[in-house]
């Protein structure tokens, strides 16, 4: 499946992801970053499709785009609503930040491209994984699955508890 | 079953962790329930125990199942140490006659201790969590058959003890706590070295690997000939024995390593004193019987005389020091030094009578000394002093208390009909029957007289006669025209109240019953002790 269209589409999505991610980071406006994060997530989802993990792609879209991102935006608006601070957010120790950013990226890329000893195995994943994910979830990963669900429940309750207002003794939380 | 009895208190501790610290009553009740459950399991073990199996060494075919009971054996830590060797440590629990009595004792004393902790008001949550941790560690020491596991529990015991003395103790508690801690740590460091040495000199006959299993170590055939602690290195074996012995002797405590005991007791709160004297001291002698002697039988046989001399010194020296004390609790502390001397003497005898006496003395000293410390705590709660000359004539005003004290005191001085006598008698019978310790026994019989002397003297000064001029309580004429006493800022009952009676009465009953009919305990230990004696006697004499 190395048709040029495939490659082109891949590069499109890759670029979308990376640039929007960069925009997320570098834009000064929280709202903008939030929206560009939306594109990043879409791009990642697309990459998941390329990685033949369609189920995950859907989950990505549903959870991230439908959940987290809305949550973030909600938080942004929300905080804006209750607080009248401007949405510009300035930065601190920018120099070490950039240095480390560049350094990390460079180092990692260097590693990848110098030590290219990846040996792709013969049995690669193909096609849709939904069924296998279902099997795995119910067979191998049933315990993590349960634990994760409990964790999620606890997290939601905790979030609700933490975020509630009108308790005067919130200050000691 | 054993895992259950070991980890019950820790579970209780976890539950307590979840209880908000304001709910003191719930915390207390939870740990009381845990202690009672532990007691129930102990009773089950006692009933299900088969006294015919000897224990000590492996049964037929090198497997412990033939001789130990309730065995639980799982691989626990298996490390490849590269060039050195592979470190395989087992989670190996089991019970024989030597440990089953101690299990019962531990369960009993920890339950009593929880009851007497009821009056602790300061940081109840932390106190009971530490207490339960301590209880688990003690129980673990008694059931562990893997040296490494034993060591883990042994060290695990120190920490809670340190804090329990250092936080809930008396005025001079930090000093006492750190002293206790350093002393015991000093001992256990050497124990660690010997443990490693033993590991590399013993081969498990079943698996063929090195092993920490005490059962395998107790069989001299499993030693590598030219290993560091193998049969050929006599000198190293002597050194290892001495070092290990010191490690345990500190816990006993044996003269001259005993000075941590009086301080620790005087500073510790009553329940901790009860635990300390009731169970922890036994761990020293238990360690000797389980580890020190059967692993180095020939060294033990060579050093019986010295051990006996130390035992005699403990007996007489402790009695004399107790005679001179002004502080009631300190006197009791020295008395327990003296009584542990009997255990040492019985062990030194190296024959069945002596060993049985020693083991039985360990049990009885656990119950009796627990009683003594509880009683001292009772009077301390009321009068806020333990100075003997601050009392006098209490017998007229606290009859029940006096009666219990009299029983406890006489049990401690070895009155026939109470359990202490039988054990002391057996210790002497054994020590005299073995030619090695005959003259030592003849000397240490003096301990009987001086024991009676200090106990009766304190009894007279505290309870008999009339109230002293500077006593810690006042006389007043009650409504019924009789004289009563009242202690300053003590609101409760003057005589023993219900809680104190529930602590004391079981101990009294046990003391009397075992004094009249000792077989319930002796029947369990005899076969193991006979086996142990057989292991200890060199082939030449056997």
């Amino acid at each position: 499946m190395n048709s040029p269209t495939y490659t082109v589409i891949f590069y499109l999505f890759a670029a979308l992801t990376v640039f929007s991610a960069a925009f997320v980071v570098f834009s000064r406006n929280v709202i903008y970053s939030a929206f560009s994060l939306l594109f990043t997530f879409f791009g990642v989802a697309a990459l998941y499709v390329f990685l033949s993990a369609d189920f995950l792609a859907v989950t990505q879209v549903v959870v991230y785009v439908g959940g987290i991102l809305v949550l973030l935006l909600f938080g942004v608006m929300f905080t804006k609503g209750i607080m009248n601070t401007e949405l510009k957010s300035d930065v601190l120790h920018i120099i070490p930040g950039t240095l480390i950013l560049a350094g990390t990226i460079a180092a990692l890329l260097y590693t990848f491209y110098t030590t290219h000893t990846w040996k792709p195995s013969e049995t690669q994943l193909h096609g849709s994984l939904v069924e296998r994910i279902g099997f795995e979830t119910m067979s191998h990963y049933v315990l993590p699955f349960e634990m994760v669900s409990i964790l999620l429940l606890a997290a939601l309750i905790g979030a609700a508890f933490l975020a509630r207002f009108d308790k005067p003794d919130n200050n000691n939380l | 079953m054993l895992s259950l009895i070991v980890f019950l208190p820790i579970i209780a501790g976890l539950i307590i962790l979840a209880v908000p610290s304001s709910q003191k009553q719930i915390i207390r009740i939870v740990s009381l329930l845990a202690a009672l459950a532990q007691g129930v399991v102990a009773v089950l073990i006692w009933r299900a125990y088969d006294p015919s199996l000897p224990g000590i060494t492996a049964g037929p075919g090198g497997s412990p199942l033939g001789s130990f009971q309730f065995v639980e054996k799982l691989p626990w830590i298996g490390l490849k140490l590269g060039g050195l060797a592979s470190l395989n440590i087992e989670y190996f629990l089991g019970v024989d006659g030597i440990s089953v009595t101690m299990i019962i004792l531990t369960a009993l004393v920890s339950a009593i201790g929880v009851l007497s902790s009821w009056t602790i008001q300061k940081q109840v949550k932390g106190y009971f969590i530490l207490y339960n941790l301590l209880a688990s560690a003690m129980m673990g020491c008694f059931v562990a058959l893997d040296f490494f596991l034993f060591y883990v529990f042994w060290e695990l015991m120190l920490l809670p003890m340190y804090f329990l003395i250092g936080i809930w103790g008396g005025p001079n508690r930090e000093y006492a706590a750190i002293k206790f801690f350093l002393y015991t740590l000093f001992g256990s460091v050497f124990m660690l070295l010997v443990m490693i040495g033993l590991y590399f000199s013993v081969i498990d006959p079943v698996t063929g690997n090195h092993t920490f299993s005490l059962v395998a170590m107790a069989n001299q055939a499993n030693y590598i000939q030219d290993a560091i602690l193998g049969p050929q290195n006599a000198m190293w074996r002597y050194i290892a024995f001495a070092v290990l012995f010191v490690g345990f002797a500190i816990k006993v405590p044996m003269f001259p390593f005993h000075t941590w005991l009086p301080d620790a007791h005087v500073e510790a709160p009553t329940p901790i004193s009860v635990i300390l004297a009731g169970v922890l001291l036994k761990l020293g002698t238990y360690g000797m019987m389980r580890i020190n002697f059967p692993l180095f039988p020939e060294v033990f046989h060579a050093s019986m005389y010295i051990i006996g001399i130390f035992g005699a010194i403990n007996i007489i020296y402790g009695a004399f020091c107790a005679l001179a004390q002004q502080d009631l609790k300190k006197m009791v502390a020295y008395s327990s030094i003296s009584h542990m001397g009997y255990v040492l003497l019985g062990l030194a005898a190296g024959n069945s009578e002596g060993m049985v006496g020693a083991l039985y003395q360990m049990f009885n000293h656990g119950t009796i000394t627990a009683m003594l410390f509880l009683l001292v705590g009772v009077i301390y709660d009321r009068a806020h002093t333990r100075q003997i000359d601050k009392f006098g004539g209490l017998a007229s005003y606290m009859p029940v208390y006096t009666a219990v004290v009299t029983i406890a005191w006489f049990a401690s001085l070895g009155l026939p009909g109470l359990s202490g006598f039988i054990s002391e008698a057996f210790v002497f019978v054994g020590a005299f029957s073995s030619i090695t310790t005959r003259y030592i026994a003849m000397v240490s019989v003096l301990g009987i007289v001086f024991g009676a002397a200090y106990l009766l003297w304190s009894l007279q000064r505290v309870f008999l006669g009339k109230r002293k001029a500077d006593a810690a309580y006042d006389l007043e004429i009650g409504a019924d025209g009789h004289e009563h006493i009242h202690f300053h800022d003590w609101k409760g009952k003057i005589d023993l109240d219900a809680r104190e009676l529930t602590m004391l009465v079981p101990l009294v009953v046990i003391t009397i019953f075992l004094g009249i009919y000792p077989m319930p305990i002796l029947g369990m230990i005899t076969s193991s002790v006979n086996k142990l004696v057989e292991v200890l006697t060199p082939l030449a004499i056997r």
Partner: protein
Amino acid sequence: MEHLIPIGLNHYLTISVFLLGFGLFAVMTRKNAIVVLMGVELILNAANINFLAFSKYNGGMGGVMFSLFVIVIAAAEAAIALAIVINIFKIFKSVDVSSIDTMKE
């Protein structure tokens, strides 16, 4: 140029490296707590990409499952984090992370 086509493992890794770098950068530099959270999300996505890529080219299901769990946990984390942010605002009257230095001394 020939190693840009066909699409191989390195491509995905590269993307994930970029996402990771940006995420780190956000976490390091941005003062607005919410942007910091976004950075965290980016990092998580980078990790996911790695997982999936490796599991695709290795043929195992482990990576897939793991990234699934990562997504779930990310959701939980986002919820909690936002709640925390709101609390932070309640206490410090701002979402400026750099102004929250009560741990100092």
